[in-house]
């Protein structure tokens, strides 16, 4: 595993010694399944990788919150694979986990988070619609698991502002064949507000991230051999030079 604890998740969140929220594996919808149209409008104009990146970054609050209670490496592997998949979907075949193996107040929210990452990154992919519900649903889950905090909402607001500065989707008619869209990469560092960021450094950051991935220790990730066999062009786990322009 190569992911470091993100600076933006306050330490008291992942050091929290107890579980303080309700959970029912047979009816999880009240814990995350409501849509805030007004909130979604804040990121609806962003490029898809930015919306997905925001969803993944929000999920880190849940994953790192639960790490203290759960030694199974699967959630962190899923998180790492999600960041890879946001660069290129072909790094993974999907991030879904089954309910049967992920029950209870610790594993249940992790399952919902993993499956939300899957639906955000894979289910809408290739279609006309952007997965604009992703950040909203993941926010609901995060606020249920971590508690509603000003810190979380303030961090999210600032993230959206940063994304609005650099990652607004190109107008469809000016990018009919997705050429600009295909070059957009959103590194994890964008969401670290302690750090300055300029999109010019994004290709380098993403390339460094990919180079550091130990794909053999992550069952969500495909090996370079498997990817090349499936027709992947370029060098797996490097940022393709045509994308880094």
């Amino acid at each position, binding site marked *: 595993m190569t992911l470091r604890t993100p600076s933006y998740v306050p330490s008291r969140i992942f050091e929290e010694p107890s579980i303080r929220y309700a959970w029912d594996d047979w009816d999880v919808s009240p814990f995350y399944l409501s849509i805030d149209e007004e909130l979604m409008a804040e990121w609806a104009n962003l490029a898809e990788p930015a919306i997905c990146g925001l969803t993944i970054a929000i999920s880190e609050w849940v994953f790192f919150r639960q790490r203290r209670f759960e030694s199974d490496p699967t959630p962190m592997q899923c998180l790492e694979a999600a960041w890879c998949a946001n660069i290129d979907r072909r790094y993974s075949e999907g991030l879904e986990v089954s309910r049967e193996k992920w029950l209870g107040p610790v594993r249940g929210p992790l399952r919902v988070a993993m499956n939300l990452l899957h639906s955000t990154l894979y289910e809408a992919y*290739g279609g006309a619609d952007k997965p604009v519900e992703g950040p909203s649903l993941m926010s609901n889950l995060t606020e249920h698991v971590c508690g509603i905090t000003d810190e979380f909402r303030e961090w999210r607001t600032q993230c959206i502002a940063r994304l609005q500065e650099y990652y607004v989707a190109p107008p469809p008619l000016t990018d*009919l064949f997705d050429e600009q869209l295909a070059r957009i990469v959103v590194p994890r560092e964008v969401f670290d507000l302690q750090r300055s960021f300029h999109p010019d450094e994004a290709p380098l950051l993403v390339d460094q991230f990919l180079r550091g991935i130990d794909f053999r220790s992550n069952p969500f990730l495909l090996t370079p051999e498997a990817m090349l066999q499936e027709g992947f062009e370029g060098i797996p786990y490097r940022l393709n030079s045509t994308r880094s322009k």
Partner: protein
Amino acid sequence: MLQVPSYIDRSGIVGLPIQYKWKSHLHMTLADKAPKNIQTVIQSISCNATFSLSLGIGEWLIWRLHGISNRVVATNCYVEALWASSVDDRYLKVQIPPQPKDQSDPATGPLYGIEAKLFRAATNASLNHPERAKATAGVVSIVRYTLPDTTAFDDWLKTTLARFGHAFPYDNDIPKGVIVPRKWLDPGVPLDVTAIPELLDRQLHDMDYEQNPFLASPTELKAAGFQGEPYRYPS
């Protein structure tokens, strides 16, 4: 038989030598890579405009392979029948042409592929299917793959999408919108809705069902419950 539209003729792509490789079922892989932004634009236009746009896009492949494969004639007839079905689906007698034995042939393969994908795109547009935009954008991917130079096609597509988006916006209350005549795929022809009856009448009247195995005859149309005069608009 459809005649080559002047804007395609001018593009210089008619009958150009094949420069691409083809393998069986490649059309499915290509259609899966439907550009997202094209889908977004198509979602914002009416179902009937999407229907006609799909056929207009597909025609670039027919004319690009004109004179290269015997199947072009059948594909041309099939697309002509699809144009008729944009007015009334009973005009289309055969849903989809039979599969060729060798789908890996670089002319027959794409022609069969475009027939299959145009049928899907036309059906999805008629039904306002959730994948209406994806089906049409998939046709774009197949056409572009076969063109040696996509510049003229890309320019035409951009212009036509902009024109259709402005003239035929998607309306939740009337998702189908007006029927869009084939002539309006020509960027030089103004989009005047008062001309629709005349353009559709000419479009249907020029069709020869005796020479086109995919078109229903007036007798077959009457048997299917068609009222009025077949191959006229309004009937």
